[in-house]
């Protein structure tokens, strides 16, 4: 056994030696993402977006004349793995910045390490407000929970023609994202004079929502808010419609995937709306080239996780360009000063808390389940 162990050690030393020689003139970036485990599907989407962006940038000659060298590690959605990978990236691979982890509960385990080591960490998708509160080296590319929750509550009250007075919420008790969106939706909806008549929850991996939906149906709400990712939201929408809940169903950017229509059934998406970062059918050149290239490369329509992963790379590349050198502190400063950067998921400006201010689009569906642009909501000007 000892011999095997030694052999592995030697092999690993050789490999790490090789990579460090090879990596002399590249910009090293690490991506922490769950490629296996319970949320592998989200992690793989992010990875696809990131890889595509890196390849695009490198094909155009890289940044500051250097190519981006991407390290990808699977954290299996585990906290301790996220911490281990962050350390490995910083100490072994000597990355200048870390992308990821994908979900907030992983990001909160990796962020303190990045902060202590003064390495910029940019999460494409962690929405919990506390993530960027860890320190000034921690950034994100997505909305914070409160913005989306608020936007949809406003939309429910005023955006659907008539004023909707009563709302029901069905959220995922085990998801940080879902709880956050539900919380801010509820607060705003009440402050706008509406009433929450039912608040139900479910756990990750559940497939049957009949109990919660039957209960909600009994309360006769005017609108149902389902802040969840498409994989479950699809099932919920389908089961709600089958139980005869025909009121509008609203959701967050987690709805944004071509899978939603397949899982929910096209006809059931009538009267569903979500707040998203971008509208895939938009005429903006960034969106159009992104969607076209993604389709060409992966033979699939991108979801919002892929788009956010893609944008996070461009945010970082932009910061490195402005910093003018590959230096962690300089990149951090440049990243903090990101302003009016036009990307796929909107025009990004980071606020003083390193959270992006960008506009949200509200998207509906036509009778074939295709996305239809509804309106754009700009971030509140403070």
């Amino acid at each position, binding site marked *: *056994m000892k011999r095997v162990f030694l052999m592995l050690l030697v*092999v690993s030393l050789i490999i790490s030696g090789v*990579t460090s020689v090879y990596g002399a003139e590249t910009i090293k970036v690490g991506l922490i993402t769950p490629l296996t485990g319970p949320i592998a599907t989200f992690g793989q989407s992010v990875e696809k977006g990131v890889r595509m962006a890196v390849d695009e940038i490198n094909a155009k000659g890289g940044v500051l004349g250097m190519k981006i060298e991407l390290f990808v590690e699977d954290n299996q959605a585990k906290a301790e793995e996220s911490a281990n990978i962050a*350390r490995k990236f910083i100490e072994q691979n000597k990355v200048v910045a870390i992308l990821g982890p994908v979900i907030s509960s992983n990001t909160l385990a990796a962020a303190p390490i990045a902060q202590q080591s003064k390495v910029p960490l940019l999460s494409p998708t962690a929405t919990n407000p506390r993530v960027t509160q860890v320190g000034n080296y921690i950034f994100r590319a997505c909305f914070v929970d409160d913005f989306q929750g608020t936007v949809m509550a406003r939309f429910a009250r005023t955006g659907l023609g008539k004023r909707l007075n009563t709302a029901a919420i069905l959220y995922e008790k085990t998801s940080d994202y879902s709880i956050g969106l539900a919380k801010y939706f509820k607060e705003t909806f009440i402050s706008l004079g509406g009433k929450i008549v039912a608040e139900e929850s479910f756990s990750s991996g559940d497939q049957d929502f009949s109990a919660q939906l039957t209960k909600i149906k009994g309360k006769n709400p005017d609108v149902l808010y389902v802040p969840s990712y498409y994989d479950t939201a699809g099932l919920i929408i389908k089961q709600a419609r089958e139980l005869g809940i025909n009121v509008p169903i609203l959701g967050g950017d987690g709805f944004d995937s071509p899978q939603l229509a397949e899982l929910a059934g096209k006809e059931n998406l009538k009267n569903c709306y979500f707040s998203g970062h971008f509208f895939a059918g938009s005429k903006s050149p960034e969106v159009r080239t992104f969607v076209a290239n993604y389709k060409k490369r992966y033979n699939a329509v991108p979801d919002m996780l892929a788009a956010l992963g893609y944008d996070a790379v461009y945010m970082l590349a932009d910061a490195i360009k402005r910093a003018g050198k590959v230096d962690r502190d300089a990149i951090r400063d440049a990243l903090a000063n990101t302003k009016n950067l036009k990307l796929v998921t909107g025009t990004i400006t980071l606020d003083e808390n390193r959270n992006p201010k960008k506009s949200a689009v509200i998207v509906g569906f036509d009778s074939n389940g295709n996305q239809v642009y509804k309106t754009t909501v700009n971030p509140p000007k403070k």
Partner: protein
Amino acid sequence: MENLKKFRYLFFILGVLIIYLVDLISPRINPYYFQIIIFAGINIVLAVSLNVINGLCGQFSLGHAGFMAVGAYFSSFLTFYYHTSFPLALIAGGILAGLIGLGVGIPTLRLRGDYLAIATLGMGEIIRVILFNLDIVGGARGFPGIPKYTNFFWVYLVVLIVLVSSYNLLKSPQGRAILSIREDEIASEAMGVNTTQFKIFAFIFGAFWAGVAGGLWAHYLQFLHPSSFTFMKSVEVLVMIVLGGLGSISGVTISAVFLTILPELLRYVKVLFNTTVDPRMVIYSLLLILTMLLRPQGLLGGYRRKVREQ
């Protein structure tokens, strides 16, 4: 041998001293390696404690993650809200985990092996569902901002204590009683061993140290989330003791260290084969099956007490 016995306390103090000295130079260790060393220590505590339940006593617990969660959350709760001193919080977390072990153990230990496994699995899941609903420790949003108290000294002090106490337990009347339950519960009863009492003791002992390990883990990561304590986590510890050789304390210790390092080494496998697919979990599960089929006494455990052969 007789001479060594006289110096047993001296050896312990020497061990503590060495740990203290290593702790002093720990800032010079590469932080990545250092972190692996810390996790290895915590895994030793987890594996050695589960080994007392599964390996020595022959009961099949799949609830180790649950006990770990209780210790992690309770000790963090104490240090975060009440600024309790770290060792005290660790012990408190361990005691609460032990109490829950007692509460679960008394009724369920009457059950036979596989029923016990599924009952403890259920208990772990119930603990997790409760944690998801406990807002004071963050619920599903997680528990951030836990002070960073865990260092080399505390981790390896606990490792030392858990190893010494397991060895002392093994070679003692109580340890033999526990082993006899694994070997043949009915014969054990007939020889006057109060099997229920010793099973519960083994269960509490295991739960206590799992709780302490949870506390160390929490105060290292500074962040807790209920999803860290799934059934998967229990299985990870199970793999450690199976690979190390059920019942062999030294084997289990080596395999805990080995299995902490292995995933890090396997990261390079991906580079070698240039795949984007992460094969680690497949390798892991194959390792588990093949060990059971080819070397049921464990890959690393080369000692006398091995798997019971019926």
